[in-house]
């Protein structure tokens, strides 16, 4: 079924564990599981774009060879409608025997920390129930958001943020294969705008390549702004200038039109605060405020209202800084 991959994230996704960059320790332990064909349940924890999904897919390929797609069920906790859907899918899938000589099938549950603790307890029971026919690989950003009973049943692997040299190595490889010119400043710029997230870095490079075959710093910042990556910063600048309504309409555009999650916007706000033109102690207070808003969102508050309140706070800070 695999025709030419047009999206570079997939085209250049590693197919063997040995091709995964930046996690030598993790990779060698995973390789030994695969060699013995004996796999515990796995918990992969780490930030976005560090290779968790790639590692899981490589394990499936190496265990099952060509039949890997039939022996892997991919689920995404944030897209399934609740734990009951997940349980039903797991049940239907794990009921039949795996194809080939491996005695179990694989179930990859991405973004598993999106499940509430109650849902995770239900998941734990499901894992127990099918432990003879299925192995779970759970991906998450923070292992601390996974309940203890699940953690204790899994071998935990931490995927650290990739080093710049690892991302650079990958970008160069792609540039060579795609016959692009990519200079050092271009690479630095990609790493900066993608915040060390390999997936985003590759997407930025692919988008840049459609603008110019010679990819430099200027092209990268052009792509970044064309892909509206500057909007959070613009929103904050407007709020600090006292233009609440304009800032708010940017916020609405991100949440409603682009469909970003409140947490995503907040995460970017968090990142931008340090770079704002504000006295240093003020930045710290703002970060405290951002954290409070983030906590409220995890408690089920409405992201739009909470972010608006945060913008109102930025307005006030801007006003105070101007008048003193």
């Amino acid at each position: 079924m695999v025709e030419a991959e047009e999206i570079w994230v997939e085209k250049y996704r590693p197919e063997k564990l040995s091709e995964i960059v930046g996690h030598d320790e993790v990779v060698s332990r995973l390789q030994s599981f695969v060699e013995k064909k004996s796999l515990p349940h796995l918990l992969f924890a780490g930030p976005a774009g560090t290779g968790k999904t790639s590692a899981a897919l490589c394990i499936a390929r190496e265990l099952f060879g060509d039949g890997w797609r039939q022996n892997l069920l991919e689920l995404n906790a944030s897209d399934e409608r609740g734990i009951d859907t997940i349980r039903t899918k797991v049940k239907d899938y794990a009921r039949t025997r795996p194809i080939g000589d491996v005695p179990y099938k694989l179930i990859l549950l991405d973004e598993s920390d999106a499940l509430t603790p109650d849902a995770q307890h239900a998941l734990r029971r499901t894992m127990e129930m099918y432990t003879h026919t299925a192995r779970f690989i759970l991906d998450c950003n923070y292992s601390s958001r996974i309940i203890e009973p699940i953690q204790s049943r899994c071998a935990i692997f931490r995927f650290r943020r990739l080093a710049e040299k690892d991302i650079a190595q990958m970008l160069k490889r792609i540039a060579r294969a795609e016959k692009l010119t990519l200079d050092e400043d271009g690479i630095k710029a990609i790493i900066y705008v993608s915040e060390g997230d390999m997936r985003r870095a590759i997407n930025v490079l692919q988008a840049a390549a459609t603008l110019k075959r010679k990819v430099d710093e200027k092209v990268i910042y052009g792509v970044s702004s064309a892909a509206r990556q500057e909007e959070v910063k613009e929103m904050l600048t407007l709020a600090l200038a006292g233009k609440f309504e304009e800032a708010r309409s940017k916020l609405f555009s991100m949440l409603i039109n682009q469909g970003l999650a409140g947490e995503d916007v907040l995460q970017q706000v968090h990142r931008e605060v340090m770079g704002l033109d504000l006295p240093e102690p003020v930045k710290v207070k703002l970060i405290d405020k951002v954290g409070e808003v983030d906590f409220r969102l995890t408690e089920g508050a409405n992201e739009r209202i909470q972010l608006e309140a945060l913008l109102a706070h930025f307005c006030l800070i801007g006003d105070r800084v101007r008048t003193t």
Partner: protein
Amino acid sequence: MSEIWADKYRPQELRELVGQPQAIREMLGWAESWRKGKPSKPALLLYGPAGTGKTAAAQVLAEQMGWDLVELNASDERTFSVINQVAGTAAATGTLFAGTEGKRLVVLDEADNVYGVADRGGYRAIEKLLERPQNPIVLIANDQYEIPWNIRAACLAINFRRVQQDAIVGALQRICRAEKIGVEPLALKVIAETAHGDLRSAINDLQALAEGKKRLTVKDVVLYRRDREANIFDVVSQLLRATTAKQARELLWSLDMPPEDVLAWIDENVPRVLVDPADLERVYEAIARADVFLGRTRRRQAYGMWGYASDMVTAGVAMARQGELKYVRFQLPSVITKMSRTKVARATRDGIARKVAKRCHTSSHVARKDFLPYLGVIFRHDKKTAERIAAELELGEAEVGYLVKA
């Protein structure tokens, strides 16, 4: 205010009951069977929407049959400790009213609302009562299916329908004649229409509009209706001007609107009204706190949190505002219209995101955040690559259009 018209003009006999001929026949038949000492069913269950005459019917029935009337409210938990004393024994001989046949008609109002006392044996007490009834019983409920089936089975269930518009107009006309108020016929029709079959609310509206007047016109009625809907504008404006917490809180009582909706109105309008950024910040913090309580209500089904949300959105907002206010026209919350305007585009976007998510082993929210913006750049600048990607993802025409424009 003088007497409430809905009480003043309560029917004196069952045949005066407006708009429920079928119900009246069935009730009389049942009462007759009790009088003969051979009850067809121990109890009546009168069910139907508010303001259709259920309670009035029970009261009139007692009068007409010469029975003493004992009214109990089923949602009152003391009810069940007294229920057997009152209902389980025959009335003492020589009751206060001469000519009663020593029977009491026990009326249990809000029988579908035994919430909170159910676990203290509320329905069991009713059940027991129905096993060996000494007295005729009437249960009254809005929804018959909220009553446990075994209790329902012991009852003759009688449906009170929404009162027809013509019947309501007729009833209102009789009241106007008795009160000596001249009235344009169309005015009553408008009131009846608004009432949706609820006769009591129609009579209440009539009283609010016409009491003390010589003549009621269509214009009066229409203005009154608009007044009811426009209220929110005044409430938001008064809220921001309230000087005490109590005053602010009570404003919500005058308005039949949940705190979420009030919150949406305040959210929409405060940025235009407030002058001082400190006010804006404080007001938004009050709204945000209200929202936190609403979130807890939703997430943990902790309905007790509602009260705090209401107070924060009223008193909290009022006390947060200290500086001056600009005079502006209040606007309807724009988020709702924004949501409906963008509905099609958002559905298209989410469709693309799902396809990308599947192809690239990720979630649709990551697809929206980390793929769609870059696909947009590609689709705008490189038609050939765009075509190949579109083919690979099996994108439809609308989806390609979205990416090109996004």
